[in-house]
């Protein structure tokens, strides 16, 4: 990794330059909130955003995607191409970059997903520094920092960006499209100060050190029943989660009954249908068990396999849950001795 400095007023040059060769996607305003969308003009890009409604996972693993088309008559696959244009996602926060790396473990690991891979490989990532919101708890998992998993990362130093360049492609993009200079000692000092200030700006310090142990110990805690009583089983938490990767696959026939499409859609472990199997058996029938296993999967199961929890503390689920269930509340309740 090496470091460059870009004056802030050069930002439009970079965005406009990238737009010549790539589809540029970044945070844009939608009412009071923000969404990742195609950037048509540099002014659309809102690097001052707090968080987005959906995380960038939608750009690699869309909420609904056609996996293939098929003919009914001879059962042949007609089209299973993945279209992935070269693109740049501009303005990811550290939590969302960390989340993509957690998704990579799943989609690019033992069972590789060609749809995800095609989109991932055609996409460059430009990160940007952020400020914690009331819902953020990335500091609890260490996902407030990101050291790899991006091509370029911009840290906002007021009048200029301190640029961490992680990949050769990232360096080439900067050289091609924008004027930068080497970082000097005062830039590096300002960057260090910024990092210290950022770390200190988190008011809440969630203690997650004993979490796996606590989860083992509190499997039958009444906490899970209390949460089950409140949970709406609406699945909003899974949809807005940058690391929830479960999906459903359905075949849909077209109106003429001659051709069909196989479609993959986001699923949620909070739905009764999720764990229902043949003969109507359901091994997650109660709401309490469904809420519980969401936490056991994220904070225990994934951890035991990949040595990371499947949560980056982005706070989207806490904001989306009308019943007010948040990982911060759950972890705190476990630390404080559960519901008992």
């Amino acid at each position, binding site marked *: 990794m090496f470091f460059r400095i870009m004056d802030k007023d050069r930002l439009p040059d970079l965005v406009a330059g990238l737009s010549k060769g790539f589809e540029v996607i970044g945070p844009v305003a*939608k*009412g*009071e*909130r923000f*969404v990742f969308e195609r950037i048509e003009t540099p002014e659309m890009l809102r690097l001052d955003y707090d968080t987005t*409604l*959906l995380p960038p996972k*939608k750009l690699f693993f869309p*909420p*609904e995607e056609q996996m293939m088309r098929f003919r009914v008559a001879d059962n042949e696959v007609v089209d299973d191409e993945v279209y992935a244009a070269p693109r740049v996602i501009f303005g990811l926060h550290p939590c969302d970059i960390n989340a993509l790396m957690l998704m990579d473990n799943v989609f690019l690991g033992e069972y590789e997903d060609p749809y995800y891979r095609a989109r991932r490989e055609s996409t460059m990532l430009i990160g940007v520094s952020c400020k914690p919101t009331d819902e953020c708890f990335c500091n609890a998992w260490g996902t407030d920092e990101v050291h790899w998993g991006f091509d370029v990362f911009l840290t906002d130093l007021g009048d200029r960006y301190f640029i961490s360049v992680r990949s050769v492609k990232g360096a080439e993009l900067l050289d091609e499209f924008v004027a930068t200079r080497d970082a000097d000692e005062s830039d590096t000092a300002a960057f260090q100060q910024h990092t210290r200030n950022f770390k200190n700006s988190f008011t809440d310090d969630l203690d997650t050190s004993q979490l796996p142990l606590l989860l083992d110990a509190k499997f039958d805690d009444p906490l899970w029943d209390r949460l089950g*009583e*409140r*949970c*709406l*089983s*609406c*699945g*909003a938490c*899974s*949809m*807005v989660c940058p690391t929830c990767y479960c999906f459903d696959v359905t075949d*849909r*026939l*077209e*109106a*003429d*009954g001659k051709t069909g499409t196989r479609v993959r859609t*986001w699923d*949620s472990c909070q*739905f*009764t*249908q999720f764990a229902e199997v043949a003969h109507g058996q359901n091994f997650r029938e109660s*709401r309490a068990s469904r809420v519980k296993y969401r936490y056991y999967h994220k904070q225990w199961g994934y951890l035991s396999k990949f040595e990371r929890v499947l949560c980056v503390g982005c706070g989207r689920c806490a904001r*989306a849950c*009308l*019943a*007010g269930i948040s990982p911060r509340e759950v972890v705190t309740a476990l630390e404080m001795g559960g519901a008992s």
Partner: protein
Amino acid sequence: MPPRVVVVGLASDFGCQVQMTNIEDQLLDVLGRIELSYWQLASSGHMPEEYDVAIVEGAVTTGEHVALLERIRATASAVIAIGACAVTGGIPALATSGSLDDHYACVYGEGDVEVACGRIAPMPITSVIDVEYRVPGCPIDMDEFTQVLSRALQGLSDCIPREPMCAICKTLENICFYERGEVCLGLITRTGCNARCITLGRPCTGCRGLAEDANLESAILLLAERGVSREDLMTRARLYNTLEEAFTR
């Protein structure tokens, strides 16, 4: 021989049958797979004695409706209930809130009314006969209808969704009405319409019925915290649903 299909309307505004005429893009494809024997809205003939699939719109409001439904059930190998009236009672079932006699007197005056043909308390057709397939909503979503019809023609089971609307609404990146202090019934209403109203800027009014997965008790509590009483929520939900039982259990 392609399956013989009839389309029948009970108490409703026939809006779902009108909606069926709006699938120009797919109508010929669908018609190519069936023999449309009777379509109450669009044909002038009489309902045949024999058919394979019956598509029924509307709520049950008279004894004649009950007799017709029983005949349909005895004849058809598959019945598809379409629209809020047929699936959840819809607007006609609003008459079951308060005194039914008073409501009738308000419209028809006192005494027995001949046009009402043995009136009974309005109810969804699913309260009278078992149906194989349901397409809820006011009006029905035509993509969903063609999918369900397709399943019926193939003999596949019904796959009516059980989850509330919030998940699909999130994937569409709509800003939640509750963030703006407005009430939306999506949190208890059956999904499957792509959160169409919400995406167009209107809160969900519950036309697809109460979702089986919905946690009504929790929804009542969290709405109460936001100043919406149980009664108010029930009044809102009653527009398309006979829900007294669900709300008072």
